[in-house]
Protein backbone atom coordinates (compact mmCIF):
# COMPACT_ATOMS: atom_id res chain seq x y z
CA UNK A 1 0.00 0.00 0.00
CA UNK A 2 1.21 3.51 -0.77
CA UNK A 3 2.22 5.53 2.26
CA UNK A 4 -0.04 8.52 1.80
CA UNK A 5 1.17 10.17 5.01
CA UNK A 6 4.70 9.98 3.60
CA UNK A 7 3.49 11.90 0.56
CA UNK A 8 1.79 14.50 2.79
CA UNK A 9 5.03 14.91 4.75
CA UNK A 10 6.97 15.48 1.53
CA UNK A 11 4.52 18.25 0.65
CA UNK A 12 4.97 19.75 4.13
CA UNK A 13 8.73 19.73 3.62
CA UNK A 14 8.42 21.56 0.34
CA UNK A 15 6.22 24.14 2.09
CA UNK A 16 8.99 24.67 4.60
CA UNK A 17 11.39 25.36 1.76
CA UNK A 18 9.20 28.21 0.56
CA UNK A 19 8.78 29.69 4.05
CA UNK A 20 5.25 28.45 4.52
CA UNK A 21 4.05 26.80 7.72
CA UNK A 22 4.93 23.19 6.85
CA UNK A 23 1.62 21.38 6.52
CA UNK A 24 0.92 18.98 3.66
CA UNK A 25 -2.21 17.11 2.68
CA UNK A 26 -3.40 14.48 0.22
CA UNK A 27 -6.97 13.49 -0.59
CA UNK A 28 -7.34 9.80 -1.41
CA UNK A 29 -10.29 8.07 -3.05
CA UNK A 30 -10.40 4.31 -3.67
CA UNK A 31 -6.67 4.07 -2.98
CA UNK A 32 -5.83 6.79 -5.48
CA UNK A 33 -4.63 10.34 -4.83
CA UNK A 34 -7.16 12.83 -6.24
CA UNK A 35 -5.66 16.00 -4.76
CA UNK A 36 -2.45 17.02 -3.02
CA UNK A 37 -1.41 20.37 -1.68
CA UNK A 38 0.37 22.32 1.02
CA UNK A 39 -0.12 25.46 3.01
CA UNK A 40 0.13 28.57 0.77
CA UNK A 41 -0.77 31.36 3.19
CA UNK A 42 2.28 33.52 2.55
CA UNK A 43 2.27 33.03 -1.18
CA UNK A 44 -1.37 34.10 -1.51
CA UNK A 45 -1.41 36.51 1.46
CA UNK A 46 -4.64 34.76 2.30
CA UNK A 47 -4.63 33.25 5.82
CA UNK A 48 -7.26 30.67 4.85
CA UNK A 49 -5.15 28.93 2.22
CA UNK A 50 -4.41 25.87 4.32
CA UNK A 51 -3.42 22.59 2.68
CA UNK A 52 -6.94 21.16 3.13
CA UNK A 53 -8.68 24.19 1.58
CA UNK A 54 -6.29 24.00 -1.38
CA UNK A 55 -7.04 20.29 -1.78
CA UNK A 56 -10.79 20.98 -1.77
CA UNK A 57 -10.27 23.35 -4.70
CA UNK A 58 -8.22 20.71 -6.49
CA UNK A 59 -10.99 18.16 -6.08
CA UNK A 60 -13.55 20.63 -7.41
CA UNK A 61 -11.40 21.18 -10.49
CA UNK A 62 -10.88 17.43 -10.83
CA UNK A 63 -14.65 16.87 -10.76
CA UNK A 64 -15.36 19.72 -13.10
CA UNK A 65 -12.84 18.44 -15.64
CA UNK A 66 -14.45 15.01 -15.57
CA UNK A 67 -18.02 16.19 -15.28
CA UNK A 68 -18.48 14.46 -11.93
CA UNK A 69 -20.97 15.61 -9.29
CA UNK A 70 -18.64 16.67 -6.49
CA UNK A 71 -20.95 16.21 -3.50
CA UNK A 72 -21.05 12.42 -3.58
CA UNK A 73 -17.40 12.35 -4.69
CA UNK A 74 -16.25 14.00 -1.45
CA UNK A 75 -18.09 11.41 0.63
CA UNK A 76 -15.63 8.70 -0.39
CA UNK A 77 -12.50 10.71 0.31
CA UNK A 78 -9.93 9.94 2.99
CA UNK A 79 -7.80 12.93 3.99
CA UNK A 80 -4.17 12.47 5.03
CA UNK A 81 -2.84 15.66 6.59
CA UNK A 82 0.36 16.16 8.56
CA UNK A 83 -1.28 18.31 11.26
CA UNK A 84 -4.76 17.94 12.77
CA UNK A 85 -7.14 20.17 10.76
CA UNK A 86 -7.82 23.56 12.34
CA UNK A 87 -11.36 24.59 13.30
CA UNK A 88 -11.89 26.23 9.91
CA UNK A 89 -10.70 23.24 7.87
CA UNK A 90 -12.49 20.74 10.11
CA UNK A 91 -15.77 22.61 9.55
CA UNK A 92 -15.14 22.73 5.79
CA UNK A 93 -14.39 18.99 5.65
CA UNK A 94 -17.39 18.13 7.81
CA UNK A 95 -19.66 20.22 5.62
CA UNK A 96 -18.46 18.16 2.66
CA UNK A 97 -19.20 14.89 4.49
CA UNK A 98 -15.64 13.69 4.07
CA UNK A 99 -15.32 10.02 5.02
CA UNK A 100 -12.20 10.00 7.14
CA UNK A 101 -9.32 12.19 8.31
CA UNK A 102 -5.95 10.80 9.31
CA UNK A 103 -3.50 13.32 10.76
CA UNK A 104 0.13 13.38 11.85
CA UNK A 105 0.41 15.54 14.97
CA UNK A 106 -2.24 17.27 17.05
CA UNK A 107 -2.93 20.98 16.66
CA UNK A 108 -2.97 22.37 20.20
CA UNK A 109 -3.66 25.94 19.19
CA UNK A 110 -6.33 25.70 16.52
CA UNK A 111 -7.34 22.04 16.27
CA UNK A 112 -10.93 21.34 15.26
CA UNK A 113 -10.93 18.46 17.73
CA UNK A 114 -8.30 19.44 20.30
CA UNK A 115 -9.28 23.08 20.92
CA UNK A 116 -13.02 22.84 20.34
CA UNK A 117 -14.75 19.80 18.93
CA UNK A 118 -16.33 20.81 15.64
CA UNK A 119 -17.90 17.33 15.62
CA UNK A 120 -20.35 18.61 18.26
CA UNK A 121 -21.69 21.11 15.75
CA UNK A 122 -21.70 19.03 12.57
CA UNK A 123 -23.17 15.66 13.52
CA UNK A 124 -22.33 13.60 10.39
CA UNK A 125 -18.81 13.42 11.60
CA UNK A 126 -15.90 11.83 9.81
CA UNK A 127 -13.71 9.47 11.76
CA UNK A 128 -10.53 11.13 12.95
CA UNK A 129 -7.38 9.12 13.58
CA UNK A 130 -3.92 10.10 14.73
CA UNK A 131 -1.18 8.58 12.59
CA UNK A 132 2.18 7.20 13.61
CA UNK A 133 4.24 9.87 11.85
CA UNK A 134 3.39 12.45 14.53
CA UNK A 135 6.97 13.15 15.51
CA UNK A 136 8.10 13.87 11.98
CA UNK A 137 5.20 16.27 11.38
CA UNK A 138 5.92 18.01 14.67
CA UNK A 139 9.64 18.30 13.91
CA UNK A 140 8.87 20.12 10.68
CA UNK A 141 6.72 22.64 12.56
CA UNK A 142 9.43 23.14 15.17
CA UNK A 143 11.95 23.74 12.44
CA UNK A 144 9.70 26.45 11.04
CA UNK A 145 9.10 28.15 14.39
CA UNK A 146 12.81 28.37 14.98
CA UNK A 147 13.16 30.67 11.99
CA UNK A 148 11.32 33.93 11.58
CA UNK A 149 8.43 34.46 9.28
CA UNK A 150 9.68 37.06 6.81
CA UNK A 151 6.18 38.02 5.70
CA UNK A 152 4.80 39.28 8.98
CA UNK A 153 5.25 42.99 9.80
CA UNK A 154 8.78 43.58 11.04
CA UNK A 155 7.86 45.05 14.37
CA UNK A 156 5.77 42.04 15.29
CA UNK A 157 8.36 39.57 14.08
CA UNK A 158 10.79 41.01 16.56
CA UNK A 159 8.44 40.96 19.50
CA UNK A 160 6.87 37.56 19.21
CA UNK A 161 7.99 35.67 16.23
CA UNK A 162 6.92 32.23 17.35
CA UNK A 163 3.40 33.35 18.14
CA UNK A 164 3.04 34.95 14.74
CA UNK A 165 4.07 31.84 12.96
CA UNK A 166 2.02 29.48 15.01
CA UNK A 167 -1.02 31.53 14.20
CA UNK A 168 -0.64 30.52 10.61
CA UNK A 169 -1.20 26.84 11.22
Amino acid at each position, binding site marked *: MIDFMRQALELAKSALNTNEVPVGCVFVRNGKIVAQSKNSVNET*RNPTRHAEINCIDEV*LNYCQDRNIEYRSFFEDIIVYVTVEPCIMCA*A*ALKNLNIKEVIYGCAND*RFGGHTVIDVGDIYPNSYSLTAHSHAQEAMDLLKQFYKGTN*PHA*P*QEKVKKKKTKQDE*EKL
Partner: protein
Amino acid sequence: MDGSLLPAIQEPPIKKIKPSTNMTINFYLNEVTSSKTPLKVVLNDDISESLPLIEVYTGHIQNPKDISKTVLLLNEKLPIKELQHLKRVKKQDIFLCPITYTNEMTIQEYLKSLDDSFADIFDSFAVIHVPKQPPKLKKQFEDTKEYWPCNFHPDKYLEKLFSDNFFTQEESNMHRKYMYIALLNAKWYVMNDASIHDVPNVTLVVDPIIASVVAVATDNRKKHPTQHSTMLAIDNVARTQNGGAWSPDCELDEETMIPNSLLQCLKAEMPEINFGHRKFKSNRVTDDNNSGTENNETSSLDSPYLCTGYYIYMLREPCVMCSMALVHARAKRIFFCVDNERDGGLKSKVKLQTVSSLNHRFEVFTGFL
Protein backbone atom coordinates in the same frame (compact mmCIF):
# COMPACT_ATOMS: atom_id res chain seq x y z
CA MET B 1 -16.46 27.75 -11.06
CA ASP B 2 -18.42 28.38 -14.18
CA GLY B 3 -18.19 32.13 -14.31
CA SER B 4 -21.91 32.72 -14.20
CA LEU B 5 -22.10 34.40 -10.82
CA LEU B 6 -22.79 37.75 -12.37
CA PRO B 7 -24.78 37.46 -15.54
CA ALA B 8 -24.95 40.66 -17.48
CA ILE B 9 -27.98 42.74 -16.64
CA GLN B 10 -30.49 41.91 -19.32
CA GLU B 11 -33.97 43.33 -19.59
CA PRO B 12 -35.31 45.46 -16.75
CA PRO B 13 -34.49 43.12 -13.84
CA ILE B 14 -37.19 44.46 -11.54
CA LYS B 15 -39.86 42.17 -12.96
CA LYS B 16 -37.82 39.07 -12.23
CA ILE B 17 -37.40 39.69 -8.53
CA LYS B 18 -38.83 37.10 -6.24
CA PRO B 19 -41.30 39.28 -4.34
CA SER B 20 -40.83 37.74 -0.90
CA THR B 21 -37.04 37.92 -0.98
CA ASN B 22 -37.19 41.49 -2.10
CA MET B 23 -39.65 42.34 0.64
CA THR B 24 -37.33 40.78 3.18
CA ILE B 25 -34.42 42.86 1.97
CA ASN B 26 -36.48 46.04 1.91
CA PHE B 27 -37.64 45.31 5.44
CA TYR B 28 -34.03 44.89 6.58
CA LEU B 29 -32.90 48.00 4.73
CA ASN B 30 -35.52 49.98 6.56
CA GLU B 31 -34.85 48.36 9.96
CA VAL B 32 -31.11 48.74 9.80
CA THR B 33 -31.36 52.49 9.30
CA SER B 34 -34.36 53.27 11.50
CA SER B 35 -33.96 50.92 14.47
CA LYS B 36 -33.01 52.67 17.70
CA THR B 37 -31.76 49.61 19.57
CA PRO B 38 -28.16 49.90 20.74
CA LEU B 39 -25.60 47.64 19.10
CA LYS B 40 -24.57 45.12 21.71
CA VAL B 41 -21.46 43.07 22.16
CA VAL B 42 -21.99 39.30 22.05
CA LEU B 43 -21.45 38.32 25.65
CA ASN B 44 -18.91 35.85 26.97
CA ASP B 45 -20.71 33.28 29.05
CA ASP B 46 -18.43 33.90 32.02
CA ILE B 47 -19.44 37.54 32.01
CA SER B 48 -23.09 37.40 31.12
CA GLU B 49 -24.19 34.46 33.17
CA SER B 50 -24.46 34.19 36.91
CA LEU B 51 -21.24 33.39 38.70
CA PRO B 52 -20.36 29.71 38.78
CA LEU B 53 -19.62 28.45 42.29
CA ILE B 54 -17.28 25.86 43.74
CA GLU B 55 -17.31 24.04 47.09
CA VAL B 56 -14.39 24.74 49.39
CA TYR B 57 -13.29 24.05 52.94
CA THR B 58 -12.97 26.88 55.40
CA GLY B 59 -11.54 26.72 58.90
CA HIS B 60 -12.44 28.84 61.91
CA ILE B 61 -9.46 30.21 63.81
CA GLN B 62 -9.64 30.11 67.61
CA ASN B 63 -7.22 32.90 68.30
CA PRO B 64 -7.24 35.97 66.02
CA LYS B 65 -3.54 36.42 66.74
CA ASP B 66 -2.88 33.28 64.67
CA ILE B 67 -4.43 34.68 61.48
CA SER B 68 -1.43 36.26 59.79
CA LYS B 69 0.99 33.41 60.48
CA THR B 70 -1.64 30.90 59.30
CA VAL B 71 -2.13 32.78 56.04
CA LEU B 72 1.62 32.82 55.46
CA LEU B 73 1.82 29.11 56.17
CA LEU B 74 -1.12 28.37 53.86
CA ASN B 75 0.35 30.43 51.06
CA GLU B 76 3.49 28.38 51.35
CA LYS B 77 2.04 24.90 51.94
CA LEU B 78 -1.32 25.13 50.23
CA PRO B 79 -1.38 27.81 47.53
CA ILE B 80 -4.54 27.68 45.37
CA LYS B 81 -3.44 28.98 42.02
CA GLU B 82 -6.80 28.60 40.28
CA LEU B 83 -8.68 30.57 42.95
CA GLN B 84 -6.39 33.54 43.50
CA HIS B 85 -9.31 35.92 43.30
CA LEU B 86 -10.50 34.63 46.69
CA LYS B 87 -9.19 36.41 49.74
CA ARG B 88 -7.85 34.00 52.31
CA VAL B 89 -9.51 35.58 55.34
CA LYS B 90 -13.08 36.49 56.29
CA LYS B 91 -13.01 37.67 59.88
CA GLN B 92 -11.91 34.53 61.76
CA ASP B 93 -12.70 32.16 58.90
CA ILE B 94 -9.94 31.07 56.59
CA PHE B 95 -10.36 29.76 53.05
CA LEU B 96 -8.41 26.50 52.85
CA CYS B 97 -8.92 24.63 49.56
CA PRO B 98 -11.50 23.10 47.18
CA ILE B 99 -13.08 19.99 48.73
CA THR B 100 -11.62 17.87 45.90
CA TYR B 101 -8.08 18.46 47.22
CA THR B 102 -8.27 16.18 50.23
CA ASN B 103 -9.06 12.98 48.34
CA GLU B 104 -9.97 10.30 50.89
CA MET B 105 -8.72 12.24 53.89
CA THR B 106 -10.64 14.53 56.24
CA ILE B 107 -9.62 18.17 56.08
CA GLN B 108 -7.88 17.80 59.45
CA GLU B 109 -5.81 14.87 58.22
CA TYR B 110 -5.05 16.65 54.98
CA LEU B 111 -3.76 19.80 56.71
CA LYS B 112 -1.71 17.71 59.14
CA SER B 113 -0.14 15.87 56.21
CA LEU B 114 1.00 19.23 54.83
CA ASP B 115 2.36 20.61 58.09
CA ASP B 116 2.05 19.57 61.73
CA SER B 117 1.63 23.12 62.95
CA PHE B 118 -1.83 23.30 61.31
CA ALA B 119 -3.09 20.91 63.99
CA ASP B 120 -4.06 23.32 66.78
CA ILE B 121 -5.03 26.42 64.84
CA PHE B 122 -8.62 25.73 63.82
CA ASP B 123 -11.48 24.90 66.17
CA SER B 124 -13.99 24.02 63.43
CA PHE B 125 -14.30 23.49 59.67
CA ALA B 126 -17.07 24.10 57.15
CA VAL B 127 -17.86 23.47 53.50
CA ILE B 128 -19.18 26.55 51.69
CA HIS B 129 -19.82 27.76 48.13
CA VAL B 130 -17.54 30.45 46.72
CA PRO B 131 -17.19 32.08 43.25
CA LYS B 132 -15.17 29.83 40.96
CA GLN B 133 -13.98 32.64 38.69
CA PRO B 134 -12.75 36.16 39.30
CA PRO B 135 -15.52 38.77 38.96
CA LYS B 136 -14.99 40.76 35.76
CA LEU B 137 -17.70 43.43 36.04
CA LYS B 138 -18.73 45.61 38.99
CA LYS B 139 -22.11 43.94 38.99
CA GLN B 140 -20.51 40.51 39.29
CA PHE B 141 -18.28 41.79 42.06
CA GLU B 142 -21.39 42.86 43.97
CA ASP B 143 -22.75 39.33 43.53
CA THR B 144 -19.60 37.75 45.00
CA LYS B 145 -20.05 39.59 48.31
CA GLU B 146 -22.73 37.26 49.59
CA TYR B 147 -20.34 34.30 49.26
CA TRP B 148 -16.78 35.27 50.11
CA PRO B 149 -14.49 38.34 49.89
CA CYS B 150 -12.90 38.56 46.42
CA ASN B 151 -10.17 40.61 44.85
CA PHE B 152 -11.50 42.75 42.05
CA HIS B 153 -9.73 44.89 39.49
CA PRO B 154 -12.30 47.01 37.69
CA ASP B 155 -11.72 47.25 33.94
CA LYS B 156 -13.10 50.49 32.53
CA TYR B 157 -13.02 49.28 28.95
CA LEU B 158 -14.86 46.08 29.77
CA GLU B 159 -17.50 47.98 31.79
CA LYS B 160 -18.12 50.21 28.80
CA LEU B 161 -18.08 47.35 26.31
CA PHE B 162 -20.87 45.62 28.18
CA SER B 163 -22.96 48.73 28.59
CA ASP B 164 -25.64 49.98 26.21
CA ASN B 165 -23.69 53.02 25.10
CA PHE B 166 -20.38 51.57 24.01
CA PHE B 167 -20.78 53.31 20.67
CA THR B 168 -21.64 56.99 20.36
CA GLN B 169 -24.68 57.85 18.28
CA GLU B 170 -22.38 58.90 15.47
CA GLU B 171 -20.46 55.62 15.55
CA SER B 172 -23.69 53.63 15.64
CA ASN B 173 -24.98 55.48 12.61
CA MET B 174 -21.77 54.69 10.78
CA HIS B 175 -21.96 50.97 11.57
CA ARG B 176 -25.58 50.94 10.45
CA LYS B 177 -24.61 52.67 7.24
CA TYR B 178 -22.04 50.02 6.41
CA MET B 179 -24.57 47.31 7.17
CA TYR B 180 -26.96 49.11 4.84
CA ILE B 181 -24.38 48.86 2.07
CA ALA B 182 -24.00 45.14 2.73
CA LEU B 183 -27.78 44.85 2.31
CA LEU B 184 -27.73 46.89 -0.89
CA ASN B 185 -25.14 44.45 -2.13
CA ALA B 186 -27.45 41.52 -1.36
CA LYS B 187 -30.32 43.27 -3.08
CA TRP B 188 -28.22 43.85 -6.17
CA TYR B 189 -27.40 40.13 -6.40
CA VAL B 190 -30.99 39.09 -5.89
CA MET B 191 -32.02 41.42 -8.70
CA ASN B 192 -29.26 40.37 -11.06
CA ASP B 193 -28.87 36.67 -10.49
CA ALA B 194 -31.94 34.59 -11.24
CA SER B 195 -30.45 31.59 -9.41
CA ILE B 196 -30.53 33.37 -6.03
CA HIS B 197 -33.79 32.76 -4.22
CA ASP B 198 -33.02 33.72 -0.65
CA VAL B 199 -31.21 36.70 0.76
CA PRO B 200 -27.56 35.74 0.27
CA ASN B 201 -25.03 36.38 2.99
CA VAL B 202 -22.74 39.33 2.32
CA THR B 203 -19.41 40.27 3.92
CA LEU B 204 -18.26 43.87 3.77
CA VAL B 205 -14.74 44.75 4.92
CA VAL B 206 -14.03 48.28 6.18
CA ASP B 207 -10.75 49.91 7.12
CA PRO B 208 -11.75 52.24 9.99
CA ILE B 209 -8.43 54.11 9.82
CA ILE B 210 -9.33 55.63 6.45
CA ALA B 211 -13.11 55.08 6.80
CA SER B 212 -13.30 53.18 3.56
CA VAL B 213 -14.81 49.98 2.17
CA VAL B 214 -11.87 47.68 1.35
CA ALA B 215 -13.67 44.65 -0.04
CA VAL B 216 -17.08 43.06 -0.33
CA ALA B 217 -18.24 39.57 -1.26
CA THR B 218 -21.45 37.60 -1.63
CA ASP B 219 -22.07 33.96 -0.82
CA ASN B 220 -21.36 31.62 -3.74
CA ARG B 221 -21.65 28.25 -1.99
CA LYS B 222 -24.13 26.87 -4.49
CA LYS B 223 -21.36 26.77 -7.05
CA HIS B 224 -18.38 26.28 -4.75
CA PRO B 225 -18.81 24.73 -1.29
CA THR B 226 -16.21 26.84 0.54
CA GLN B 227 -16.94 30.12 -1.22
CA HIS B 228 -18.96 31.59 1.60
CA SER B 229 -18.98 35.39 1.58
CA THR B 230 -16.35 35.59 4.35
CA MET B 231 -13.91 33.32 2.54
CA LEU B 232 -14.39 35.32 -0.67
CA ALA B 233 -14.02 38.63 1.17
CA ILE B 234 -10.78 37.50 2.81
CA ASP B 235 -9.47 36.51 -0.61
CA ASN B 236 -10.50 39.89 -2.01
CA VAL B 237 -8.59 41.57 0.82
CA ALA B 238 -5.57 39.40 -0.08
CA ARG B 239 -5.96 40.67 -3.62
CA THR B 240 -5.59 44.26 -2.37
CA GLN B 241 -2.26 43.09 -0.90
CA ASN B 242 -0.91 41.60 -4.14
CA GLY B 243 -2.17 38.16 -3.24
CA GLY B 244 -5.35 36.16 -3.66
CA ALA B 245 -6.06 32.54 -4.55
CA TRP B 246 -9.38 32.43 -6.37
CA SER B 247 -9.78 33.94 -9.78
CA PRO B 248 -12.68 36.36 -9.96
CA ASP B 249 -15.49 35.24 -12.21
CA CYS B 250 -16.40 38.71 -13.34
CA GLU B 251 -14.64 41.97 -13.97
CA LEU B 252 -13.60 43.69 -10.77
CA ASP B 253 -12.75 47.30 -10.15
CA GLU B 254 -8.98 47.31 -9.68
CA GLU B 255 -8.97 49.53 -6.63
CA THR B 256 -11.84 48.00 -4.68
CA MET B 257 -12.06 44.45 -6.02
CA ILE B 258 -15.80 44.99 -6.29
CA PRO B 259 -17.58 44.00 -9.52
CA ASN B 260 -17.64 47.12 -11.70
CA SER B 261 -21.36 47.28 -12.22
CA LEU B 262 -22.09 46.70 -8.53
CA LEU B 263 -19.64 49.39 -7.52
CA GLN B 264 -21.30 51.92 -9.80
CA CYS B 265 -24.62 51.10 -8.24
CA LEU B 266 -23.29 51.40 -4.66
CA LYS B 267 -21.51 54.66 -5.38
CA ALA B 268 -24.65 56.11 -6.91
CA GLU B 269 -26.75 55.14 -3.88
CA MET B 270 -24.18 56.11 -1.25
CA PRO B 271 -22.10 58.99 -2.62
CA GLU B 272 -20.73 59.84 0.84
CA ILE B 273 -19.02 56.43 1.28
CA ASN B 274 -15.36 55.90 0.40
CA PHE B 275 -14.23 52.79 -1.43
CA GLY B 276 -10.61 51.64 -1.62
CA HIS B 277 -7.71 50.50 0.54
CA ARG B 278 -4.48 51.84 2.00
CA LYS B 279 -1.54 51.32 -0.26
CA PHE B 280 0.04 47.96 0.31
CA LYS B 281 3.78 48.03 0.76
CA SER B 282 5.46 44.71 0.53
CA ASN B 283 7.82 43.74 3.28
CA ARG B 284 8.57 40.54 1.53
CA VAL B 285 12.30 39.87 1.76
CA THR B 286 14.42 37.27 0.10
CA ASP B 287 17.14 37.41 2.69
CA ASP B 288 16.00 35.71 5.87
CA ASN B 289 18.62 37.51 7.94
CA ASN B 290 17.25 40.88 6.97
CA SER B 291 17.82 43.17 9.90
CA GLY B 292 14.80 45.38 9.24
CA THR B 293 16.01 48.82 8.28
CA GLU B 294 14.28 51.98 9.45
CA ASN B 295 12.54 52.27 6.13
CA ASN B 296 11.41 48.68 6.12
CA GLU B 297 9.81 49.02 9.54
CA THR B 298 7.80 52.13 8.76
CA SER B 299 6.51 50.66 5.56
CA SER B 300 5.29 47.48 7.20
CA LEU B 301 3.69 49.39 10.06
CA ASP B 302 1.36 51.51 7.99
CA SER B 303 0.80 48.90 5.33
CA PRO B 304 -2.25 46.69 5.76
CA TYR B 305 -1.54 43.12 6.88
CA LEU B 306 -4.27 40.49 6.40
CA CYS B 307 -7.45 41.93 7.99
CA THR B 308 -5.60 43.42 10.96
CA GLY B 309 -7.54 46.46 12.20
CA TYR B 310 -10.42 45.88 9.81
CA TYR B 311 -14.13 45.84 10.64
CA ILE B 312 -16.27 43.10 9.10
CA TYR B 313 -20.00 43.61 8.44
CA MET B 314 -22.12 40.56 7.69
CA LEU B 315 -25.83 40.02 7.17
CA ARG B 316 -25.79 36.61 8.86
CA GLU B 317 -23.59 35.34 11.67
CA PRO B 318 -20.70 33.48 10.01
CA CYS B 319 -20.55 29.68 10.16
CA VAL B 320 -17.81 27.93 12.12
CA MET B 321 -15.50 27.73 9.09
CA CYS B 322 -15.89 31.43 8.33
CA SER B 323 -15.62 32.47 11.99
CA MET B 324 -12.30 30.67 12.26
CA ALA B 325 -11.21 32.21 8.95
CA LEU B 326 -11.80 35.62 10.57
CA VAL B 327 -9.62 34.56 13.50
CA HIS B 328 -6.86 33.55 11.07
CA ALA B 329 -7.31 36.88 9.27
CA ARG B 330 -7.10 38.81 12.57
CA ALA B 331 -10.11 40.97 11.97
CA LYS B 332 -10.68 43.57 14.68
CA ARG B 333 -14.47 43.70 14.98
CA ILE B 334 -17.30 41.67 13.49
CA PHE B 335 -20.84 43.05 13.11
CA PHE B 336 -23.77 40.92 12.04
CA CYS B 337 -27.58 41.29 11.73
CA VAL B 338 -29.13 37.84 11.93
CA ASP B 339 -28.18 34.79 14.02
CA ASN B 340 -27.09 31.59 12.28
CA GLU B 341 -28.84 28.98 14.43
CA ARG B 342 -27.53 26.06 12.41
CA ASP B 343 -23.78 26.54 12.63
CA GLY B 344 -22.99 30.07 13.78
CA GLY B 345 -19.48 30.39 15.18
CA LEU B 346 -19.69 33.72 17.02
CA LYS B 347 -22.90 33.38 19.01
CA SER B 348 -25.29 30.55 18.17
CA LYS B 349 -23.28 27.31 18.38
CA VAL B 350 -19.94 28.43 19.74
CA LYS B 351 -18.24 31.75 20.46
CA LEU B 352 -14.78 31.49 18.97
CA GLN B 353 -13.95 35.00 20.24
CA THR B 354 -14.09 33.63 23.80
CA VAL B 355 -11.92 30.54 23.27
CA SER B 356 -8.84 31.45 25.23
CA SER B 357 -6.31 29.28 23.41
CA LEU B 358 -7.01 31.07 20.12
CA ASN B 359 -4.63 33.92 20.60
CA HIS B 360 -6.42 36.37 18.39
CA ARG B 361 -9.65 37.73 19.82
CA PHE B 362 -12.02 40.09 18.16
CA GLU B 363 -15.11 41.85 19.43
CA VAL B 364 -18.46 40.80 18.02
CA PHE B 365 -21.50 43.07 17.86
CA THR B 366 -25.09 42.53 16.83
CA GLY B 367 -28.47 44.20 17.44
CA PHE B 368 -29.02 45.97 14.13
CA LEU B 369 -32.65 44.90 13.85
